[in-house]
């Protein structure tokens, strides 16, 4: 494989994982909950593209709409779904001040619920769907051929990251999210409304999950009710190796994981490739042992007493 193609591949996969990790990191910041259902948000965003049915060549629903409308509809739908999980599952739990283990298990329950609902309405058979057919083209870039969708993934991620940074630094609501992530109790005392700031984090996180749905389906063209699980785990692992409670760390951690998986796939000797995940996750364990607090720790990230 051409080294430039490989780099583009690694960047694209890294970007996708970075977006997932950022979505998980946003919610983690304000709620100290690792939202496992994030993967299922990505999954239902993808399934919203087609009409519920049992057939494997699904009839397009949102997928048939013009592109701007399609993008807005999927992102909006997933954001609303994320808000719904917050309102009906996580908010009642938060009122009872449960520990993070219980929150985590309840996010499994939500994820299982969403999977079961999709299984019920769409059956478990994988479906194929095509969106943005123009993205499947290859473009020639300085003599190498690169899949358009990879280039778009990298650009979209960069744009979304930039927008998020601006929002978190400049907008009042964004500053509130950061304040709540820093010290939730203190932020509330200074007038940050708990429900609003958490809903905002969920909404943003959902919108990012929607973007991932689109990018992922544009690349693979396949829907599967279990597609969210590996994605959530990737984001989850990325968040932790980046350094929990630190959005820049989450993005870099996710990026690292995605890029490492592509590079391992390409560079491992042929006979070891099926066992790529063994190498990838050994690497994760190694990272955790060397930097238990994560690769990119900020000041004051340690537990306060």
């Amino acid at each position, binding site marked *: 494989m051409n080294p430039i193609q490989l780099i583009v591949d690694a960047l694209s996969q890294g970007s996708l994982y970075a977006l997932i990790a950022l979505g998980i990191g946003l919610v983690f910041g304000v709620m100290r909950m690792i939202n496992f259902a994030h993967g299922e948000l990505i999954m239902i965003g993808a399934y919203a593209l087609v009409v519920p049915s049992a057939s494997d060549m699904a009839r397009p629903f949102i997928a048939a709409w013009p592109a701007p409308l399609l993008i807005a509809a999927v992102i909006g739908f997933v954001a609303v779904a994320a808000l719904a999980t917050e309102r009906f599952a996580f908010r009642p739990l938060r009122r009872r001040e449960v520990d993070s283990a219980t929150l985590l298990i*309840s996010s499994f329950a939500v994820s299982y619920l969403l999977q*079961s609902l999709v299984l*019920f309405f769409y059956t478990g058979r994988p479906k194929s769907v095509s969106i943005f057919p123009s993205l499947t083209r290859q473009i020639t870039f300085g003599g190498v051929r690169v899949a358009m969708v990879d280039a778009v993934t990298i650009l979209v991620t960069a744009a979304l990251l930039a927008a998020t940074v601006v929002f978190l630094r400049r907008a009042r609501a964004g500053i509130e999210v950061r304040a709540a992530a820093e010290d939730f109790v203190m932020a509330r005392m200074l007038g940050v409304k708990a429900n609003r700031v958490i809903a905002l984090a969920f909404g943003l996180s959902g919108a990012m999950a929607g973007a991932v749905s689109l990018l992922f389906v544009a690349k693979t063209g396949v829907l599967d009710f279990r597609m969210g699980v590996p994605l959530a785990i990737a984001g989850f692992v990325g968040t*932790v190796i980046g350094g929990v409670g630190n959005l820049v760390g989450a993005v870099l951690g996710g990026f690292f994981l995605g890029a490492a998986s592509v590079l391992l796939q390409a560079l491992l000797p042929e006979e070891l490739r099926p*066992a790529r*995940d063994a190498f990838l996750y050994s690497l994760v*364990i190694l990272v*955790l042992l060397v930097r238990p607090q994560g690769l990119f720790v900020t000041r004051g990230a340690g537990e306060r007493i």
Partner: protein
Amino acid sequence: MTRKRFLAAFPAAGLIPALGVLCVVVHYLGGPLLEGALTEALVYMVMVIALYVFVGNSGIISFGHVTFAMIGAYASAWQTCCAGMRGVFMPGLPDWLLRVNMPTTPATLLAALLAAAFAALIGVAISRLGAFAAPIGLLSLLFVIKTIYENWTSVTAGQSSIVGLPLDVDIWTALLWVFAAIVVAQLHARSPSGLRLRASREDEAAARASGVTIWKERLIAFVLSAFLFAVGGGLFGHFLGTLAVSEFWLDMTFLTLAMLVVGGMRSLTGAVVGTLVVSAVRELLRAFERGIDIGGLDIHAPEGTQEIWLAVILLVILIFRPQGLVGDRELGRPVVK
């Protein structure tokens, strides 16, 4: 020993007669279907009790214990599997292992020892990780070992199944293993090491300041818990009679964790009650899906609704009883007001 001192040392003592009575009732009045379901629940109970030993006492969630069930189940199959067919399924085993013919109980114990030895090795590192890094480290461990087992075809049959394991686990053997697990878990929880570990769960900084070496106590619990979880894995193989690497994956991880949390992860009684409740709910929903007849009224739930209701019931329990169904009470110990 007086009753009071016994209960102080063994607060969950009430579990043993309660489970015994349950099994006797089901065996004589319940019919084979119910007995099979209860036996399966008891096998899971061994795993959930094992999970309690580490998760309950240390307060650190583990997404990786299924690794030990996998190691235990396969190591046990290496010694007991399928009469003359062992060399066909697992041609890569060394000669002496191909010839050995171990009864199930010592095979399970040896297999669990292997898992415990592995846990001791990896635990030296894992037990130093914090509350968020440790679960991910353990999850990564599961990924690594599962990928290795999937590709190590000559001793695990890789992506296909091993069939014909001796079916040696009936309701009574499963019950005896549960009793053993309860005794071990309880002795550990009340031992000085267990108490120090529980102190670190309540307040890490204070425990450390009082001279508790947290990683050491975590390591002890981790190894013990891996041993018991591997026993559960071995029983699982001998209950089903078949093994496939894909069984030991996220579904089993979530199911065992959900059982522990639903019951209450801070108590041994919680582990037992959670397993029974979640198993009962699953069986009931399964029965509804097949259709049941109540007084001439045929209730038949549409196919695929079982999973939806299980998720909803789990959520409702978590919302209304966030500490689990029993909280940190134990069956047998009077409630301290």
